[in-house]
């Protein structure tokens, strides 16, 4: 028996909100995929990429549930419900597989595998067993995964990112409640109105979660600011033009210390040596020195070097932003020799602004 046997206003509202959710899920999926494709050095474990996959699975899940709950009954309905389960568990498996790698401990891809098992069970288990399995086993497991993610993103995020992290959790809570109100148990207990309220919750939840993700970097990159130790702008002749450090001691005056000067010369020396060793004209993008990474950005006569404990996409993105802004300000000023280092005083302000260092 379908949830809505007869045409009524409650049925129409429920159906419309299901379609609204599908539309928004697809819209955000396209948006995130486009964002991801535009990102240089894109990685598969990017949150946006994983999220767009999950949204597509939600869209499929909703479409199949529309068929099962509005237009079919009996065996045909069970067939569409199965497809709906397959879509959502496949989405969860892919999302977990991608995002588990960002967790600080090795989960051995437990959640991704559970998702795959869920997909397989959805194919052949009788519906009567499947619906209990989904409710009493799969749902708690993914609540645990979500709780872990929630804890990590709240712990790691700072400032405005934390607000978006909370929003994301709120959106998840709302959607989860929405799904809960749509299941057969709830409809049997409270009537079809429960389903209609569920669809409204789902639409609101998907929009809130997607809006939050729009403003959040990947899980593993939330605390990117804490990973940066030093940022140098070094002229191709080895002169340090600017140096910003995130460690406690700040320079008293604007002149460069001996160690800073040495660092500048050393980095340029390494660059030249690498060119010599590799006999290539290409530029260095990153140097991995165990627990410290040196990430490079290049302009005609200067290089930006970010000393960080991790090589993060968001830092690379910030380096690119810096290079763009710096080129606008110093085009025509920066030449093959440095006559007056004082001209570069504003660079420190620019670095602090772009990398959010106060």
């Amino acid at each position, binding site marked *: 028996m379908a949830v809505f046997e007869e*045409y009524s*206003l409650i049925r*129409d509202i429920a*159906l*419309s*909100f*299901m*379609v*609204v959710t599908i*539309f*928004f899920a697809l819209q955000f999926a396209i948006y995130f995929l486009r964002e991801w494709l535009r990102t240089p050095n894109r990685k598969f474990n990017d949150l946006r990429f994983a999220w767009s996959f999950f949204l597509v699975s939600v869209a499929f899940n909703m479409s199949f549930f529309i068929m099962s709950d*509005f*237009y079919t009954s009996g065996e045909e309905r069970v067939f569409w419900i199965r497809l709906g389960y397959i879509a959502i568990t496949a989405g969860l498996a892919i999302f977990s597989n991608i995002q588990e790698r960002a967790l600080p401990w090795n989960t051995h891809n437990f959640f991704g595998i559970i998702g795959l098992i869920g997909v397989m069970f959805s194919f052949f288990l009788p519906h009567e067993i499947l619906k209990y399995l989904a409710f009493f086993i799969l749902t708690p497991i993914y609540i645990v995964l979500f709780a872990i993610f929630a804890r990590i993103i709240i712990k790691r995020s700072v400032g405005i990112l934390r607000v978006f992290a909370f929003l994301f959790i709120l959106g998840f809570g709302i959607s989860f409640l929405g799904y809960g109100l749509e299941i057969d148990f709830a409809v049997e207990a409270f009537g079809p109105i429960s389903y209609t309220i569920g669809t409204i919750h789902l*639409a609101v939840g998907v*929009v809130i979660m997607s809006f939050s993700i729009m403003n959040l970097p990947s899980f593993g990159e939330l605390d990117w600011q804490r990973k940066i130790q030093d940022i140098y702008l070094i002229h191709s002749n080895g002169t340090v033009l600017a140096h910003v450090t995130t460690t406690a001691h700040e320079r008293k005056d604007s002149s460069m210390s001996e160690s800073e000067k040495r660092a500048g010369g050393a980095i340029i020396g390494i660059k030249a040596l690498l060119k010599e060793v590799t006999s290539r004209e290409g530029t260095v993008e990153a140097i991995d020195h165990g627990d410290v990474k040196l990430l490079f950005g290049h302009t005609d006569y200067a290089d930006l070097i970010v000393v960080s404990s991790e090589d993060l996409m968001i830092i690379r993105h910030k380096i690119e932003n810096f290079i*763009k802004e710096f080129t*606008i*300000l*110093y*085009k*025509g*000023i920066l030449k093959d020799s440095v*006559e*007056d280092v*004082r*001209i570069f*005083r*504003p*660079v420190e*302000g*620019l670095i602090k*602004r772009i990398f959010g260092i106060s």
Partner: protein
Amino acid sequence: MYFYNVESPIRDFSLSIMVVIIFVALQFVITYIYQWTKSPYRKISDLRFSWSIFLLSIMANIFFYIISDFYTIGEERMLFLRLGSSALLIGLAIFANIQERALPYRTRNIFGFLGIVMAILIFFIPPTLFSILQYLIIGVPYSLLFILFIGYIWKQTIGPFRKKVYSFVFGFIVGLIGYVFLTDYLVNVLGHFVYTFGTIFVLSSVFIMSVSIMGMPSFAELNWSQKINDIYLIHKSGMPLFHINMKRKEETDVKDKEVLTGGALTVINMVLQSIVKSGKEIKSIDQENVKLLFGHSSSIILVILAEEDLEILHYKIKQFFKDFFELYGTVPEDIYNRSTFLPARALAMKIFSEEAQKLEEKR
């Protein structure tokens, strides 16, 4: 009649798309109103603001059409049809009223006035003539307004903005076709599926037009950078720190004339201050075809010589100072070393040139 008491997937699909239109429009209304309230030089004539009002009217229009086409019949249906068309006309009237002020043509607000009159008259049109008349009333005059409006933006825009104009026109045509598909006449002749196509067309139109508007400049912002002749940054002592001739976009060496200009501008500022006996600083001087716009901060003065005293230029002056102090911290002491201010000059070039801003927006 339409889908009243009809039970079919086509009916459900059409209804769902109608609801999606309302939510997509709402999404853009929230985005644009939010952007507008955040904009430091917001004006009522801002394109995004008037577009949000228009989208609100589309939402009301579609809502009334849902009631008329899916849940009512006879006289009651007619009432909701009239309400729907009236809502759309009010939205068009407000949009026209706001945008007509910004257009260079002397339209004497005829479109705004016409919209309001028609929004009332639509309640008195006999039901037999309603369908054809409402499309004549809404379609013909407002298509003309859109042509004028698009023509003006087209003339004023260059490069990437033009693409937005193309897609806006495309969206507009798709929307017109969509609304024609929703008419009783076509549904009676061709069947219910025409209505479904109509809803998809209207949805695509709202989406395409709203996305295009996102990248279009406001009338208030059009060509502002072309109205700037010169930019001076002067120290309070009268020493010019940089000068940009925006027509040539070149830096000339400090010439005697510039030192004189710098000194003169500072003197004007000081003399005026002593005459008006005000602790405040001079904001602008209107010298017929040239306006001098001043910005003061710490010991430096930014002076813009422009053809018009535009609000956006005052905002840009503030933006310059904000960025300047973010980069420099304080005003450097070595004001006689011109190279110290070269980055500040590049910053001014960036802030006061439209091309640079466009690039920034694209990012």
